[in-house]
Each structure stands twice: as C-alpha cells, then as structure tokens.
C-alpha cells in the first residue's frame, strides 16, 4: 500500500508546505548520541544535512527504537526514512553507508589495562560489561562465552529505565566509577559518553574484527522502504555530495571509525 503512494506523499507534502517537499524521518526520542527529541544527536544533524541537500523540510515521527520499531514506523508508513541502520539489514532498502564503526573496549586510563584482543586471558578475571539488546548480548560476548567466560560478564539493558535520560550511558558510567573493569560497547556510545566522564577512558577497537561469522564492525546507512528506489537514490546522491560535512559531524560526536578491510 505504502509502496505505491510514496511519490504521491511527496507531492502532497509539497502542496501543504508552500511547495517545499518534506523528508519524513522516524527516530528515537531518547537515544543520544544518535537522536533525541531536542535534535541533539548526530543522526539528527545528519538528517538535517540530508534534508537540506534535498531542499526538503525535516519532519520527525518519534518512536522508541525497540523490536518491531521498523514494522511500526517505516513499514507502517509513519515516515519514509530511518537513520542509522546496519547497511546489511535485510528488512529495508539501505543507502550507501555513511560511516563504519566498531565495537570497542572501554577502560579507565589509570588502570593501564592496554587490552588489544578478545583473546586476552585477563578477560577471565575482569568484570566485563556489555549491553543487552533485547534478549541478545552485544556480539563480542559470544566470543567470551565460547571461551567459557560468562559468569563475570554483566549485562546492562539498553532499554532501561528508558524514561531516564540516556539509558545507554549506564555502561560507560560503570567503567568510570569502577563498578566494572572493562566495557565492550558499540563505538558511538563510547566516543560520546567517555567525553562526559570526569575520569579519562581508553577506547580501543575490538580485535579480532569478526568471530564465527559474527562481525564487530558494521557499516551504517539510512534505511527506506523496499521498493522506494527513487528516495534512496536521492539520499545516496546527498550522502556522496557532502562527505566532508558528514565527517565533521561524526568527529564532533567522537564516533570511532574504522576503514573497510
């Protein structure tokens, strides 16, 4: 249903807003550094930039990014774009990736852990924090589990209490406050929240970069509905035309970036 009427929506939007088209984006209202309702996240800034490139007015539908988020938002026609999805996500059509980040090790600098690899034997002794994403642990925990390291792995739910500001930050706080020895966390969380801690934190990319076909680096893109090739092409062109500005925004938010292997 939505596939067929997309171009019409674009036109209708134009008619309402004084001939200016509308870029409709679904985003999480409370998920820094990616997005929040005040527009302070880097995906907010990137969406603004893309809307500017398309000469469109940016319009948000706020929806918590949980399981069934895509079904309720993009697929339900509440918006036409979702920022920040893995480029290999099968359920949507994705644009060219605009950054590639990695899971990272985060520890207090004054601990001098100098960790470089998941095979470091000290992981058996450290208290290791990971995010729990739904009922999945963050991918690096699978490597530790395969080595029998589970009882000292502590899950921090991404979900909650979600009504508090920045629920994801608790994991970084736990490192800074010494409740855990090391966190293994998705790069953008680490880069952004580490800057806000009073303690200095070391951030090191997780190595090896894959294990048992599980990647720890991901290319990130914007998602549109499958079949919405026209919008995807326009977004691809916008991404390509201002890569310098994209880099500036990512650097400002401390997003750890890795090159493609």
């Amino acid at each position, binding site marked *: 249903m939505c596939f067929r009427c997309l171009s019409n929506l674009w036109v209708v939007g134009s008619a309402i807003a004084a001939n200016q088209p509308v870029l409709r984006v679904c985003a*999480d209202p409370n*998920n820094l550094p*990616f997005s929040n309702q005040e527009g302070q996240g880097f*995906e907010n800034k990137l969406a603004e930039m893309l809307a500017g490139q398309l000469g469109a007015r940016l319009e948000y539908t706020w*929806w*918590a*990014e*949980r*399981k*069934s*988020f895509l*079904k*309720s938002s993009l*697929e*339900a026609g509440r918006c036409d774009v979702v920022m*920040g*999805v*893995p480029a*290999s*996500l*099968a*359920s949507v059509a994705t644009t060219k990736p605009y950054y590639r980040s990695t899971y990272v090790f985060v520890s207090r600098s004054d601990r001098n852990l100098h960790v470089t690899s998941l095979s470091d034997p000290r992981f058996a002794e450290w208290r290791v924090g990971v*995010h*729990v*994403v*739904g*009922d*999945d*642990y*963050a*991918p690096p*925990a*699978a490597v530790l*589990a*395969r080595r*029998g390291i*589970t*009882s*000292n*792995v*502590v*899950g921090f*739910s*991404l*979900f*909650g*209490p*979600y*009504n508090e500001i920045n629920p*994801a930050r608790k994991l970084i706080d736990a490192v800074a406050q010494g409740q855990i020895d090391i966190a293994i966390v*998705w790069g*953008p*969380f680490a880069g952004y929240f580490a800057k806000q801690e009073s303690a200095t934190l070391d951030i090191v990319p997780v190595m090896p970069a894959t294990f*048992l*076909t*599980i*990647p720890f680096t*991901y290319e*990130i893109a914007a998602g549109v509905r*499958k079949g919405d090739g026209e919008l995807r092409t326009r977004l691809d062109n916008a991404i390509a035309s201002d890569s310098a500005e994209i880099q500036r925004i990512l650097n400002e938010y401390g997003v750890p970036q890795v090159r493609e292997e």
Partner: protein
Amino acid sequence: MRPTTECLLSLFAALLISPASAQIQNQPDDGQWTMPAKNYASTRYSTLDQINAANVKNLKMAWSFSTGVSRGHEAAPLVVNNTMYIVTPWPNYLYALDLTKPGAPMKWVYQPNPTPASQGVACCDVVNRGAAYYNGRIYYNTLDLQTVAVDANTGKEVWKTKMGDINLGESMTMAPIVAKGKVIVGNSGGEFGVRGWMAGLDADTGKIAWRAYSTGPDSDVLIGANFKPYYRSDRAKDLGKNTWAGDQWKIGGGAAWSWVSYDPTLDLIYYGTSNPGPWNPEQRPGDNKWTSSIFARRPETGEAIWAYQFNPHDEHDYDGVNENILLDLNINGKPRKVLAHPDRNGRLYIMDRTDGQVLSAEPFVYLNTTLGVDLNTGKLKFNEAKATGFKTVRDACPAPPGGKDWQPSAYSPKTGLLYIPHNNLCYESQGTQANYIAGTPYVGMLSRMYAGPGGNRGEFCAWDPVKAKKVWAVKEMFPAWSGALVTAGDVVFYGTMDGWFKALDDRTGNLLWKFKVGSGIIAQPVSYKGPDGKQYIAVLSGVGGWAGAVVAGGINTVDGTAALGFTNAMTDLGKYTTKGGLLYVFSLP
C-alpha cells in the same frame, strides 16, 4: 447430634467409594462463563447440551459485534448476570453487552488508555487473553502493565494498580484469575531481557499482596521452609540464582505470561514461566532456573510449595507457560490428583499436582529436539544434534512456537479426553543475521519456520491422558492457534486462522458444522445459557498474535525471518484472511 455425625460419616464414606462426584474436573456449572478457562480446573467444559452432535449442523449466527480494533483477538468473552464482557487487544477496551435485549446492545465501554508506546514493547502482536469476574467486578490487565478492577454493573473503574514499567521491556497480556480474594497476574516480555514475576493483588483494594520472581535467590522466588519439590536435584538452596552465571538471573526472563489454574482443596495455584534470556544459550550456562518451569504456590501469600523445570537451559524458545488442566484420574490403576500440561517442547506432561512428580511425558506432535523424560530424576533428555547457538541447525522440531503455544486445550469429563489445538512446525536456526535496536547493530538469531512432516502447519487432536495416547487428529493448513471448547452435547469447537469456526464430534473428530467468519480465529470459544434459556456459543474473530502478525501487523513477507522467524511459515496467510475484530454468537434456530 449422633444422627448428624453418622450422616456426615456415611456421606464421607460415600465420597470415598464413589470419588467421581468429587473429581476436580466435575465442576459446578450455572451456565455462565466467569473466567477464561471456564473454571479453576481450566477444563473449558460446558455442561450445556442443547446443542449436540446431532443438531449442531443447524447452528446459526444469532448476532455479532464489532470491537473496532483490528489486531489479534485472543480473549474469551465472559458471561455474568446476563451481560457479556469482552476485552480487546491494545488499546484494551472492555465492552459490556446486554444479553437481555435483542441484538445484545452495548451497556458501556471502559477505556483504560494505555500508553501508545507499549505497542513497541510487546514481542508478538499487542494481544490480551481476557478478563476474570469476581464479586461484582471485572479484573484484567492492560498492555502497559496496569491491573484494573472495573465495576461489572456500571463500567466505572474501582482501582488501577501499576505493576511494572514498560520502559524496562515488560508488558502484560495474560488473563488473571481470582483465587482466595487475590487477583493473580504476571508479566510478559521474555524477548526483552526482563525478569519474570507473578503477583497477587488484593481483589478489594488492588494492593499488591505478594510478588514472586521466577529467578534469583529463594527470598525473591518466595521459596521457604514449605518448598518441597519432588526431585532431589530441585531441593538445593537459591537455585534461581546459582543455576546462572554471575548476575544473569537479573535479566534472565521467566515471564509468567499465560494461564493460572487453582485447586481449592489443595489450596495451590499452578502456572508456568517463559524461556530464559539471552537468546544464545552459550551465553547462559546452567539450568537457568526457574525459567521454562511450573510453580505450585499458595494464592494468599505466593509461597512456593513445589516447582519443576520442563526445559532446563532452554535452547529453542520453549516457554513453560502452557495451560495446566487439573484432573483426578486413575493412572496405572491408582487414583491420582494430576495436572495435564501440553508443553511447547511437544510433550504432554501428566504430573502429580500435590508434589510435582512427572508420571508421563509422551509426544503429542512430531519432535526431535528431545529424547524423553527420565521419570526417576525428572530430567529432560536432549538430542545434542539439535542444540542451537551461533551455528546452523536444520530441521529442529518443534519450532520455537512449540508443539503447542498458549492456545488452551479443553477436557471433557464425559469422554475423558483432552482436546488440543496445536502446531506442526519445524525450523532452522543460524546466529548470523544483522539486526539493530536504538542505533546498536548486533547479530540476532536468523530463524525460519516451516511445516513439519505431513506439510500441515497445524493439527487439532484428542488425547487420552490415562493411556497417554492420541485418539484422533484433524490436520489444519495453518497452526491451530485458537482455544478449544467442549460441551456435554458431545461437540468440540475451535477456530482456524483462515477463518473457519468448526464443530467436531468429540469421540471421532468428524466435522459436524463449520462457519466462515470475517477474520481468522485465534481466540477462545465459550458456551453460555442466555436469559431466554437457550444455549449459545460465542467466539471472537480477528487474526493476529505471533502466528498471525504477518496479517495483523502488515509485515513484509519478503523477510521470512520477521516476527522472530514465524513469517516464513505464514507467508500465505494474507491470501486467506484479513484483519478485523468481530464477535460472533451462535445458537440453534
């Protein structure tokens, strides 16, 4: 004095000699339907017999009612004091319909206004499994974790108690029961890393009397001095904590999202708990107690009396939440107080409900993930070849929705048979699908489900719980995702996802009547006596739920792994039904 005592003694003797009249499955029936499972024993058996195997072919639609809600309708209508009560999926309206007037016009509607965000938390459609009537009030749960008491006459809210926080990934979908003045309710959210619990609220005030967690130290699980599980291995201290690695029990699942039964004589409630989290079993070594388990507790205090784990260290999403039907049967020639529990793992458990001993656990569906239950130790024996994790496993049966999911069975004291609506699904599983939540990429389970042997995705069968044998079975194209109803008229009713409401002969399984409704049926049929003295059969139509999310949620069928892998098995459902909530009521002309 003396004659009275003698009288009592002889009565007592009579009861001993002919226990049939006192059997728990022979429940009194006033023609009303006051709780989803009909009675505390959860038999879903109606003694009404105007509609019978000979005349059911004449059954006609009497009236209907649109709920105005289009998601999956799983609830049982209640009938009390000539009023019918219906709970809808989110936004969880409660309708009261006046059965004394032609066409049963609406008396009132109660709208609890649950927060829209709670839709994003429910794993598998925004369903609700119904309400319970007690002492002039209707009790039910909203998706955003409010337990409400509503005056059955006026529709006015009497109390509302917040039971949890949807922001933690919890929700509520189960139907409460009221036992000994306590409203028994539990949470949903096993897919969201929640910690499961069951709670008892004071029916008068809504005050929380107790809350028993499924995981954690004994003090949190309400295990104390009176806890006497049958198997020795279950008697150690703090198993809800010590069968986990580290602190994992704090987010280990074990939600109590389904049915509760009650034995007033033993004063025990029975209910099951959901599968453990995280999904990858390699990351949670240990038995992960008390997930995928059954608890027997005191309704007033929540104190655990016994427990048993159906699926230790579950690897296939086999929740232990399915219905427990309370029966007094002769097993191996001895009268036993048992419960019958058709588990997600595909085995029909007959357990002694006084102490939790497993008497039998035979397969009611094709399965290969387990080899049997050791009746000496109570341990489930696994087929290691079908173990999951971050590797590919093919042809594991049953699939995650189980040999049977939440859809409740019925039992007829007349035939002595259980009537079980169930699935016939297998699956393959890989741990390598890119996924994301809230900006965080990760690898989730890639699971695809498909029909099991025979090609039919569902089945409706009759099962002899004494002989532990299937008596007859009817194949269904789609999973049989509705509840069952059986009556003293020797008719058993259920609905199909492609929208047929069916009546079968309860002894042969022969199809006696069917009626095409507007949308697929995943709800619980009921039978009641109207103010005109006639017998009626009522059922909600409105496809959805986990199995029907492909239609109710408008899921794109290009991605077979959507709806946690169920979409792959259901891609054609949209050709057979569309969504929409409607109540259908039938009677003889």
